[in-house]
């Protein structure tokens, strides 16, 4: 078929057919999601803006004694890396927290709202497959927004460092070392890996939310919470066991375990703790459960697309 197309169509038309390939359609679908769910990018931007504003205010209105300020020259390279990682994670945590909350609501809403306002009849009047639509929505939640927030966090941290640097210079202590490019890059690299790991680990939960979103007719949030709440209860009442509960806990918090970050979560970590220098990324990315989860996510996404294909509740 491609051969006939190429021989028949003029060169002018050749790029046009390329323009409507799956990749470009996916990109268009993704932009559509960001038009509709503006909270996905506005919320993190607002948080970043507030954080930078607070930083400026703090620098302008407080006068810490720079004689006691931290000088990076006191530390070893390892310790500097750990310090940058700790600072980076602390600074970016409000951004990611807000982003993942918005992502949660987005995932619940994304295949439900279009049926509720009947706009699905418009989207389905266009030559876009359900699989591609579902894929676009998933990729927005699991790839585009987390990576966008990651970049935003990096920019925010650079802004913080710049302000601090300026403050230190203007404050009459230019000899203080406040910046270590290598440590910063290492911290950012680890954070990127953690963002990717998070998306992979939580992919089945994302896909589960999308499946519910594609399936429910009403009481969306009731249906989102009911199965994970009832299943362990029923199991316990019936068999007096708690495998489902353990499994759910593992899928929710196991990421810290596979990445070797439990100490961080348990609150035992401090600035130069080895946990910041050495998350177990190699082990985490080769974890079987991680990839089994990704497979489960693919199956759930496929089910969501099938449901969207024939769900017939727009009369």
């Amino acid at each position, binding site marked *: 078929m491609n051969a006939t197309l190429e021989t028949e169509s003029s060169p002018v038309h050749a790029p046009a057919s390329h323009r*409507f390939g799956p990749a470009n359609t996916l990109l268009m679908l993704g932009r559509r999601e960001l038009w509709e769910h503006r909270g996905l990018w506005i919320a993190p931007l607002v948080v970043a803006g507030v954080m930078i504003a607070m930083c400026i205010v703090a620098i302008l209105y407080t006068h810490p004694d720079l004689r006691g300020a931290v000088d990076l020259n006191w530390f070893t390279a390892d310790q500097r890396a750990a310090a940058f990682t700790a600072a980076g994670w602390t600074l970016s945590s409000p951004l990611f927290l807000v982003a993942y909350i918005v992502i949660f609501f987005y995932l619940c809403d994304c295949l439900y709202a279009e049926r509720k306002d009947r706009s699905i009849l*418009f989207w389905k009047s266009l030559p876009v497959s359900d699989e591609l639509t579902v894929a676009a929505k998933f990729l927005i939640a699991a790839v585009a927004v987390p990576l966008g927030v990651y970049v935003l966090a990096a920019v925010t941290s650079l802004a913080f460092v710049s302000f601090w640097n300026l403050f230190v210079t203007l404050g009459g202590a230019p000899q203080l070392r406040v910046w270590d490019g290598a440590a910063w890059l290492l911290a950012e690299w680890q954070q990127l890996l953690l963002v990717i790991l998070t998306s992979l680990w939580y992919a089945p939960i994302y896909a589960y939310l999308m499946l519910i979103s594609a399936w429910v007719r009403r009481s969306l949030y009731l249906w989102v919470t009911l199965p994970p709440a009832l299943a362990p209860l029923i199991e316990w009442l019936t068999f007096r066991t708690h495998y489902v509960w353990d499994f759910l806990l593992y899928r929710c918090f196991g990421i810290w375990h596979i990445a070797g970050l439990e100490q961080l979560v348990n609150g035992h970590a401090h600035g130069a703790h080895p946990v910041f220098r050495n998350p177990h990324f190699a082990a985490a990315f080769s974890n079987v459960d991680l990839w089994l989860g990704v497979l489960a996510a693919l199956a759930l996404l496929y089910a969501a697309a099938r449901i969207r294909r024939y769900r017939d509740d727009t009369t």
Partner: protein
Amino acid sequence: MTAVVEARGLAKSYGPTRALDGVSFTVEQGRIVGLIGPNGAGKTSALKAILGLTPFEGALTVLGLDPRSQRDALMQEVCFMADVAVLPRWLRVAQALEFVAGVHPRFDRTVAAGFLARTDIRMDSRVGQLSKGMVTQLHLALILAIDARFLVLDEPTLGLDLLYRRQFYDTLLNDYFNKERTILLTTHQVEEVEQLFTDVIFINRGHIALSASVEELGERYVQLTVSADAAPRARELKPFYEREVFGRTAMFFEGRTPGELAPLGDTRTPSIADLFVARMQGVSQP
């Protein structure tokens, strides 16, 4: 002529209800077909089956494709517009154009923009800010700009005022319709659009009550209006439906010529609306 839609034994159930009970019909290319029936007759089920929006039983091809397995290919050639208000409220006019341009290979943005320029719709408006009539204009602009072979309209002017309705159908006929294109339309306002149709399909309780071209209707049906004294004689010729109109009786005949009825009163070709009412009541009577 080529068949755009070919349905054989098309059936669709919702639980125990048979929305479509094994209907067969054909839509030929270059026609404007009115799918007419009371509420719950199966119109929307038939359209949804044609558009691949719902599973069904029976054989159905649309433009030679199976709507079940080849929906994505089909939607390149088919356009459809469910009743107004399916454009999401958050969408901006410019975004609507950009999105359709981004996913539909047959969409010509300049055509849509040109049509919108003739309306009061602004590019930066959101759908939620537009009146119902303007939303329909916007949707129509998108559809006119898609070079599709088959257009399906489900109550496209429901809830619009007369001016918008008239404009809608004028635009459809003048700017869109041609011999390569086919339109399938359901509407409640039969009187208003009956000059538009080349063919009608009456559907009732999941069955096809009548399927014919407008020319065939003229050949097959005669409406005779008689005064009270001529009514008994006319009744002997077995009209299938009659009703009182200003003290006279309008009778509807099938298979009689105007020539044999003319001596009894005034004859004419019944309007589609009258015929529809007549057929629907005829069906419900034993």
